[in-house]
């Protein structure tokens, strides 16, 4: 089955349920994202099975949560938390979201601000910041790297059906830095495609051909980014992990092992 077929069948909720559904605490589904404006920043929601779920708010590039795209459905992989509703939605935390590739013009809802929905915890306003990123993390302790150097692993996780994205830049820079400082001779790149188990029991799988694409792309970026003279061992997983509906997003991954 090719990727397009899987996508289409998933979006139409026409696929056969092939497995036990995820635990009741999980909410994994594909649906339109919804923007709800507020007096400060907008919040992002999505509706599934008659219920509204809160995904996150608009902040900036320092956030772990990357909001979805109107015009596209979104794959939501989240855990129901016991927090009070935010913006009218049941809070999913943690939550991973993946914009789907295909357009869907129905996904075009921007709800106006209402007094009853507020996000007083917003770390930055909708316009200019107060001089800091929303999630300013303390700078890492300076690392002294001394021989003998140990092999070190780095992981990249992907949106569903996607290759490299801007958010991976930091990890790639860490790989480059460590490989350069240690004079590593070998870079092992192992990539996999993944599958996720939706709350309705649907098994939603990426095209298996994504694994070699991910591995080759990462290797090429590292080579052109400054590691062209290193030996690359590139591997793509030929099988997908069986999803259980919990943290399935971790199966969409590239592992980079820097071996001095």
């Amino acid at each position: 089955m090719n990727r397009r077929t899987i996508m289409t069948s998933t979006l139409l909720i026409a696929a056969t349920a092939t497995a036990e559904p995820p635990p009741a605490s999980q909410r994994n589904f594909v649906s339109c994202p919804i923007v709800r404006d507020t007096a400060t920043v907008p919040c992002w929601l999505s509706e599934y099975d008659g219920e509204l779920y809160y995904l996150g708010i608009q902040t900036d590039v320092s956030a772990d949560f990357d909001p979805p795209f109107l015009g596209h459905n979104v794959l939501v992989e989240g855990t129901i938390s016991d927090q009070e509703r935010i913006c009218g939605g049941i809070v999913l935390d943690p939550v991973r979201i993946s914009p789907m590739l295909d357009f869907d013009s129905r996904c075009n809802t921007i709800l106006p601000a209402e007094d009853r929905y507020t996000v007083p915890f917003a770390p930055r306003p909708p316009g200019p910041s107060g001089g800091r990123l929303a999630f300013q993390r303390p700078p890492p302790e300076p690392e002294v790297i001394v021989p003998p150097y140990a092999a070190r692993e780095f992981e990249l996780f992907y949106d569903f059906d996607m290759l490299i994205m801007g958010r991976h830049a930091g990890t790639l820079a860490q790989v480059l830095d460590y490989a350069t400082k240690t004079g590593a001779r070998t870079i092992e790149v192992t990539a996999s495609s993944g599958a996720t188990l939706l709350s309705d029991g649907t098994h939603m799988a990426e095209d298996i051909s994504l694994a070699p694409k991910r591995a080759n792309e990462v290797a090429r970026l590292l080579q052109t980014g400054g590691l062209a003279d290193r030996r690359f061992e590139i591997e793509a997983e030929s099988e997908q992990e069986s999803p259980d509906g919990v943290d399935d997003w971790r199966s969409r991954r590239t592992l980079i092992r820097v071996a001095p």
Partner: protein
Amino acid sequence: MPSSAVTRDLADRWPIVAAGVVALCIVSSAGAQHSAANRWWSEGSGHLLPGRVAYPNDYGELGIVNASGNYDTAGNAFFEPIGTNGRACVTCHQPADAMSISTQTIQQRWQETNGHDPLFAAIDGRNCPHLPSGDPQAHSLLLERGLIRVFLPWPPRDAAGKEITPEFTIEVVRDPSGCNTHPKYGLESDEPTVSVYRRPRMVANLKFVTAADFGVTPFSIKDSRPTDRDPETGRLVNMNMMADAREPTLKTQAISAALEHLQTDGPPSEAQLAEIIDFESQIYAAQLRHVGAGDLDEPGGPQALGPQALVDGSTGVLGNNTTRYVFPMGDAWKSLPRTGDADSDTEREFRESVARGHDVFFFRTFWIRDAMHINNIGLGNPIKRTCSTCHGMHMTGMDVANGWVDVGTTNLPWASTVLQDPWSDREPELPLFRLTCSGSHAPHPFLGRTIFTQDPGRALITGKCNDIGAIVMQQFRGMAARAPYFVNGSAKNLRELIDFYDRRFNIRYSEQEKIDLENFLSTL
């Protein structure tokens, strides 16, 4: 209008340079008349460019500051016709036009030389080299929009000259210049070439444009592609210099510009390149005096205004915050008591409008939607933000790093174009390409697999579907001196620029907001 006291004060600090001493550089006082000939800096003139000099424009006067002091241009390769077509760098980067060139100047030059100035060289000052010499129609894109032909190999090549396999195919839908379908110059020629038409960028304030001390990381935060490096030093560069970011340094840019636009027989010598870079690295330009706001450089005035502010300004600062600001204006013009003097009060009223215009730029939120390399970099689509979200670099309003974005200036459906109909003889001026993204790659998240564009922008360099129509932002300085705007000259004036954004993002500015924003932009 400024008071006479303001004018005198300005003239004291920006002394009038006698035409006989520096033939082409004129410092005005209010109301002074300047002939078009005096504004034009000819190739190889050998004149001195004063350390501080002002040039009149429709909004007042542009100020040029040479941080090195009076600059002897004699023999400097920026000013000398080092190629075979009589042009120099200064031909398209005129001091009077904020080191770019306006259509007003281009049209004057056409009239004064009957189209024989080197500016109108066939290679790129004509819509296509095969078109007839001396015919204004053959130069219409330069005369009407201020556009120079940029011709790029297709498929693109990487830094090592190796062919890149693009993610999309490119077809010519319409070709008013005939260049993209020409057997010698076009896509089907022996050396397949894409011709696009772009405005010459400002060659001033370059310490900001080339600063790599903020947000420049080994892999771009926009798409994790490796950031370009200086081929000589290996240092990361910010890729903000050219519309498509194809040249990493002032030096490589000078070489390619000399070969292509000046038609040199080979690369300039190291000494010539050093001269060009030396000049480019020390010149600053910004509006100095405004017909409405008066002296922009006066002590105690807004910190952002005037060219000296750029000389003194810090690089590598993200100004999209309330601690540093993109254009720090302070409160000096926020609320000005009236004096009862009509001229003075008119100026004060205008200054308050400028201050409000700044706040429209900085604080007025709207939904930014479907803008590639903004909405897809972790911010979501749409985001409720402001102009300064994207135009965040302190003092220039560029991006701090990797500033290519598709806001729709060249991509349909947003790009300005002529809707053909049987009741009008208006014809499209720019080429139109259909780019079809391969099924083996993810489609463009906002435009899909088939994209119509007047200029594929960054995609002509990377071959990436997501880069189609992505154009590096330009700085906001000296705008009063260098209309038209946008990479393809599609906004003839500041109001058209504002109207474009108003339509594109459904901002629904009030008329007063538009007036205030134009007033603000015209003081930069």
